[in-house]
């Protein structure tokens, strides 16, 4: 690995300035669990790493029934899944963050980093999509907000311009009678990369029989994690029945655009999208029904 400059700014402004490398190859460093591996594998080189963990705003984790969840970009996975409020309000986020790598990796790896790494298989991304997360971005031109499903633009690519950085993720408060779930399929039970990942969220009516709206997001079946909008939309107004779930799974399969690689064939992935969509919806609906009645 070529040596590089390591800087650890303590303010956003400083970080933004350092990230704009004026021709230097600069990357932000949060947990480092992806970037250090990629650097060692010579997938790319950097002249400067900007460690963003020292910036207070990026370590923010606030979760309340008033404002929903604000998740700083440098918050490691364990802080997410060990947070009782998050576990109660956003169990799908716990599903995803507790799957990323090992306990060791979860001590360091962040949801923000998982998103910025923009792997098609990134486990937290479908979960963020179904939960309606938005990305708070800071840069030389100021702040902007991007829907999480628009953040990734290709394998390893995202919307961040030079000098821009992800500051935090904002997740709206889940509505009453809603539930969500993320799951993935891997050959091993842990320490693996998703062959397919699926997240699903549903909002039920007050009787908890009918689906008012649903979102389904897919991982590892397209160049980026994918919001399967039609698959979710067709559930709106339907009974939470097996037939409806089956149809949504079919639509999700149609939305998938998988490739064949060493982790799975396109055919297997398409099949798994159907299987996992049904399972994800099943658990999401069950969770929606479990919650306390408003």
């Amino acid at each position: 690995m070529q040596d590089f400059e390591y800087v650890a700014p303590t303010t956003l402004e400083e970080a933004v300035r350092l990230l704009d490398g004026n021709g230097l190859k600069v990357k932000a460093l949060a947990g480092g669990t992806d970037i250090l591996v990629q650097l060692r594998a010579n997938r790319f080189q950097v002249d400067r790493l900007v460690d963003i963990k020292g910036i207070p705003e990026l370590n923010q984790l606030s979760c309340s029934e008033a404002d929903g969840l604000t998740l700083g970009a440098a918050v490691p996975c364990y802080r997410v899944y060990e947070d009782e409020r998050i576990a109660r309000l956003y169990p799908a986020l716990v599903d995803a963050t507790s799957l990323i790598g090992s306990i060791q990796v979860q001590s360091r790896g962040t949801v923000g980093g998982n998103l910025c790494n923009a792997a098609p298989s990134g486990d937290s991304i479908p979960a963020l999509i179904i939960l309606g997360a938005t990305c708070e971005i800071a840069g030389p031109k100021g702040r902007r907000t991007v829907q999480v499903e628009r953040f990734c633009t290709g394998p390893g690519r995202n919307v961040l311009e030079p000098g821009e950085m992800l500051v935090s993720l904002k997740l709206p408060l889940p509505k009453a009678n809603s539930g969500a779930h993320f799951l993935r399929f891997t050959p091993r039970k842990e320490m693996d990369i998703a062959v397919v990942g699926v997240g699903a969220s549903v909002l039920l009516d007050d009787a908890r029989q009918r689906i008012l709206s649903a979102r389904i997001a897919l991982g590892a079946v397209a160049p980026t994690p994918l919001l399967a909008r039609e698959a979710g939309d067709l559930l709106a107004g339907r009974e939470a029945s097996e037939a409806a779930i089956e149809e949504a799974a079919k639509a999700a399969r149609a939305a998938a655009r998988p490739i064949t690689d060493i982790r799975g064939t396109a055919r297997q992935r398409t099949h798994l999208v159907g299987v996992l969509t049904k399972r994800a919806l099943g658990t999401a609906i069950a969770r929606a029904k479990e919650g306390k009645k408003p």
Partner: protein
Amino acid sequence: MTATARQESKGSGPFKVVGTRTTRHDGVDKVTGRARFGADISMSGLLHGKVLRSPHAHARIRSIDTSMAEALPGVKGVATAQDFPIIRGQALDFSGAVSNARVTAEVILAHERVMYAGHAVAAVAATSPHIAEEATRLIRVDYEASRVERLGSGEDTSPGSNIASHIQLKRGDVEQGFGEAEVIVERELSTQTIHQGYIEPFASTAHWAPDGHVTIWTTTQGIFGVRASTSAILGIPESMVKVIPMEVGGGFGGKASIYLDPVAAVLSKKTGHPVKMVMTRKEVFEGTGPGCAAIMRVKMGADSSGRITAAQFWLAYQAGAFPGSSVSGGATTGTGPYNIDNFLIDGYDVVCNKQKTSGYRAPGQCQANFAIETVIDELAERLGMDPLELRLKNVVKEGDRMPTGVPFPYIDLRKLEETMKTHPHYSAPLEGPNRGRGVAVAFRGHGGQGAPATMNVNADGTISLITGAIDLSGTRTTVAMQAAEVLGLAAKDVILTVVDTDSVAQTGTTAGSRVTFEMGLAAIAAAQEVKRQMSARAAMLWEVQPEEVEFQDGVFTCNRSPAKRMTFKELAGRLARSGGPITCSVYAPSTGIGPSFAGNIVDVEIDPETGKVDILRYTAFLDAGQAVHPGFVEGQMQGATAQGIGWALSEEYLYTEEGAVANTSFLDYRTPTSMDLPMIDTVIIQVPNPHHPFGVRAVGEVPIVPTLAAVANAVYHATGVRMTRLPMSPGAILEALEAKKAQE
């Protein structure tokens, strides 16, 4: 999952030390991080070496330009194959060369051709590993790509094909045997290239002193093999090379081959500094010898009583880029643990542009056993027989002949199979759908080569036992225990040290499950010699005849006068002033390790929607002969089972279109994690080996052999699908289930 406490171990001889669960000698060092492994070494002036590897699976090297690398600040030296005297100006002659120093040199640094992607081409020594690695990327190699042979299928048997050699074993008349059969099953099965998966990468540090002495600190299964290869490759006498063994962080056959030691030595010579080389995990996967892939065609027939009337095996094993696959291991155990009158076994060693394969736990036997035990399971089904009953019907007994014609010595496989059949696991109900149970049985033959040992009596009554046999998994303890048994001492009082090549007689590589058996024989012989000398010393002190001295339970007595009594420790304390210390060196020739037997029962559950296999319950059976340390024997069984399960379900080399390994990390080369396995129950039976005074048999390798087929048979019984290609990955099972559904 619940922790089951089913750790059975039955029967033990009238022993005091052998058969107990004593604390391992290397344990405290290992749990405190003090044990020094291959890479755990530093010294003043140390440089770091890195290897440049070929991106091509097959190419001619037109030229290598190292000038830019040499110009990088911090770089102190660069080496290529031209620095190996054995290579300079010599063509490679494959005639009969299964493995020799010339081939080893060619693997270590490619000469005129690179034969696989990952083949080492050049090496750099620099002041830091980072600089050395940067420098390798500045070396310009001009390659001329050649045709890549990736299949190694053994289909083409014509002269000039890629078959390096052919083995044939036969008995009786197979055509006649098949004529007598009521049921005939024919299958083609295959396994893929797999890796030993040791956690410690290869590491070697070498210092070439100005006086020409080369010292090597390395992680290896055999220091004398490293010495022989290194001296031959470097063209210097063996006496100029001293190899110091470090702890070995897993070998499983893989670390019987050498890759770094001569390179580190050459770099040290060129730079005048000690040079340390440590492989990355990627290098381990692409640059070291994996276990070989195999294609196997099996045809077996049985009559209505279940007697196997004939068997035919066609085995093609991929050797990789140089001849020498483990097909001999498969062929010589090809008929499995069955007594078959008519068989024909053809084994082919096939070369192709992949890594030169190396040994992996029971080399060649797992593949062949997967084939035969799958077909046996199918025969049992077709005959409507219980699979263990069919095995018992054809079980080999003492005096029956192995496929090689060599008769089986004293064995009792029937006892092992009866134990399996009556074990509660075998009759436990399989609760729930998509579940299945599989069984398989295996035998492995062992060679033997003898072993030397040196023993000294310390003044405090302890023993120092010195050997050159690398301890991979606890043999310091199991060998010391055997000496302690003879001398009436506690295991901890025999301090066994594995020393360097200058300090002990030439000792064989730790391979073939031989150390506890053969080094045990040497330790017993040394202990008996010490006992003889100690008795003589007691006789001298007591002024009696040596034959009047008796030794029992650690106490010397004189049978003429009961008052004369000395413990071993008391006598040891008097040695210095009664003629000096007692020491001896012995060489114990091999008495024949003999064959070993193992069996498995496994329950699986399949997720029919994803194809994922979950191992629900596992019971491993082994005839250990006398288990020297039952805890270690269980450990061998459990570790072997885990490796076998990985092989069966998730492990394989994946190659790109161009022939490079596509999964060079533990992320995509999926060895099982703790989440993927249940507790692995063990049942040790003990049929004493008549060729060892305590009845010890070999236990290290045979436990992996039945695992592949046991899991595959369980998958069949859960799904109705015969999986004939390993690994049985979720994708593969899913496809097979779909194909079955389409047929129905």
